[in-house]
């Protein structure tokens, strides 16, 4: 890494530290990730062990957030739901990157008729309501968390492909790309060393926002019974269960709902902050 790159990276960190919203979101997400990794150690009870002597217990000293309809500790299930949401969204967004990034780069770089065709396919795919398409693909692949997250990644990939394509169309005509070409650089080298690094900022912003969308989509699919399968814990699945007992134990709907809301909020806030912070015209003060 060049000295200049290190310096610009340091500047970015300084900006993040001076932006309260970005800092809070980042700290919250790092904390959540730590919780997700350490879930088996941190959780006070087993997330799936049932205890019919302690059914629908309200929050108290033994069970901080109470127990569900088969006597499982809600706090423990909440903690064990964190890796599902976080790593699930990460997996979905990775799928979107693996499919969308090369397609967008290729289409934008090659241009012409092929680009027109790919662009049209991308636009048409974007006309599909994403959740409905993800439900269809999950149903066809087989119902489990991995397939659900793969489907979400698949339906998100055209969003990324469109952005990457548009950025590539701009960057490929820049002088430094021309210079690299004159210096004899191959297509792959130009794409990886010159085009990609120069359009990465909007892509990073989009990825952060997509993480929030993937998290909400995972919760929706798990709520519908198309994601995580019982007895495994997930925030969406917990809400589906709590929904059935809303009249007798209304408190149950709050912990998973707030968990989903806060995580999505943090990803969105971080994305919006990065959009400002990564903007080269931003002067920092």
């Amino acid at each position: 890494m060049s000295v200049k790159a290190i310096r610009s990276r340091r500047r970015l960190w300084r900006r993040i530290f001076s932006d309260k919203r970005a800092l809070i979101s980042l700290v919250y997400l790092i904390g959540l990730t730590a919780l997700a990794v350490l879930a088996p150690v941190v959780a006070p009870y087993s997330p799936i062990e049932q205890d019919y002597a302690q059914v629908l217990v309200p929050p108290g000293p033994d069970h901080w957030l109470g127990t569900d309809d088969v006597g499982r500790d809600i706090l423990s299930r909440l903690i064990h739901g964190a890796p599902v949401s976080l790593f699930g969204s990460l997996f979905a967004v990775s799928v979107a990157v693996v499919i969308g990034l090369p397609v967008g780069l290729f289409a934008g770089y090659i241009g012409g008729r092929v680009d027109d065709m790919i662009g049209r396919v991308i636009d048409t795919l974007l006309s599909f309501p994403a959740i409905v398409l993800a439900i269809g693909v999950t149903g066809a692949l087989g119902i489990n968390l991995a397939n659900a997250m793969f489907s979400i990644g698949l339906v998100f990939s055209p969003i990324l492909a469109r952005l990457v394509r548009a950025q590539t169309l701009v960057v490929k005509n820049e002088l430094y790309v021309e210079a690299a070409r004159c210096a004899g650089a191959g297509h792959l080298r130009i794409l990886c060393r010159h085009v990609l690094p120069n359009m990465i900022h909007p892509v990073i912003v989009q990825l952060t926002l997509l993480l929030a969308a993937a998290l909400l989509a995972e919760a929706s699919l798990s709520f519908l019974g198309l994601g995580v399968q019982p007895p495994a814990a997930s925030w969406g699945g917990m809400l589906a269960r709590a929904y059935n007992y809303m009249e007798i134990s209304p408190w149950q709907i709050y912990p998973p709902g707030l968990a989903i809301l806060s995580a999505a909020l943090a990803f969105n806030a971080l994305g919006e902050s990065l959009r400002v912070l990564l903007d080269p015209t931003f002067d920092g003060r």
Partner: protein
Amino acid sequence: MISIRLRAIGTRVLQVIPTILLATFLVFGLMHLVAGDPAVLYAGENPTMERIEQVRRQFGLDQPFLVQYANWVGKVLTGDLSVSMMSAEPVLDAIWRTLPYTLLIVSVSLCLSVLVGVPLGVAAATRSRTPLDSAIMGVSSLGIAVPNFWLAMLLITAFALNCQWFPATGAVPLTENALSALYHTVLPAIALAASGTAEIARQTRGALSEVLASQYVRTLQAKGLSRARIVYLHGLKNIGVTLLTVMGLLINRLLGATVVIEAVFAIPGIGSLVVQAALAKDFPVVQGVVLAMVVLVLVINLVIDILYTVIDPRILRQ
């Protein structure tokens, strides 16, 4: 002028046909790609080898992909979307039966989003960098991040269980009792409208701020026009195209999000239809609903495209 407009509309209608054709190809191709062997899916739970073979011949799945696709499109064009594997009901009938419920919720929440979102956005833009602006933008961040099905549960808890103002679940067809149908739609539509309202408020604020900072607004101010006249007459007119674009994207998103809302409120809409079909591996229904939804979105986008030319005649000249 009218003939130019008609020609522009005609071109757009013609342009949407290849897109719809491409969409049918994508639905067919994608579903067959992810399904592996569709014959196994069509054959139902734990099929025997003979059953799979029989299904393969029956549905023409032993033919080349493109022949299968052509056969399928031919059938779709005559209104034959195959039949449900669970109930043997024609898929098209199932869609017609469920679609009205969904369209009612989606259109009511679209209206709500615009009627609440635009004034919020205007208020935020005209009082930029005040506590009111921050509050509106903060609430809209919440609206975008809140899981809509959880919001639905909160609404049910507050207004159906605690206050009993509205029914908790269920739906009434609009044709049977319009008032009761709308009454049942209130809570689902609010839950669905949260993210749309937030999105519209943000976009309105962004677009209107730009307009208010422009040269011609300064000219209008210099001419002595009142603030309200500038904002509501000239400002809103100039962000009309932006609003229309956002609404187009929103309809797509609402049609997706309604799936989860319908599950919470036990509404027998097209979303419930596709979820039950996916859970039961009722492949023809899933495929039919996905196709119906994308065609619906494309047609609505066509209408919006045409409305562009009405709102902004400059588009005609391009």
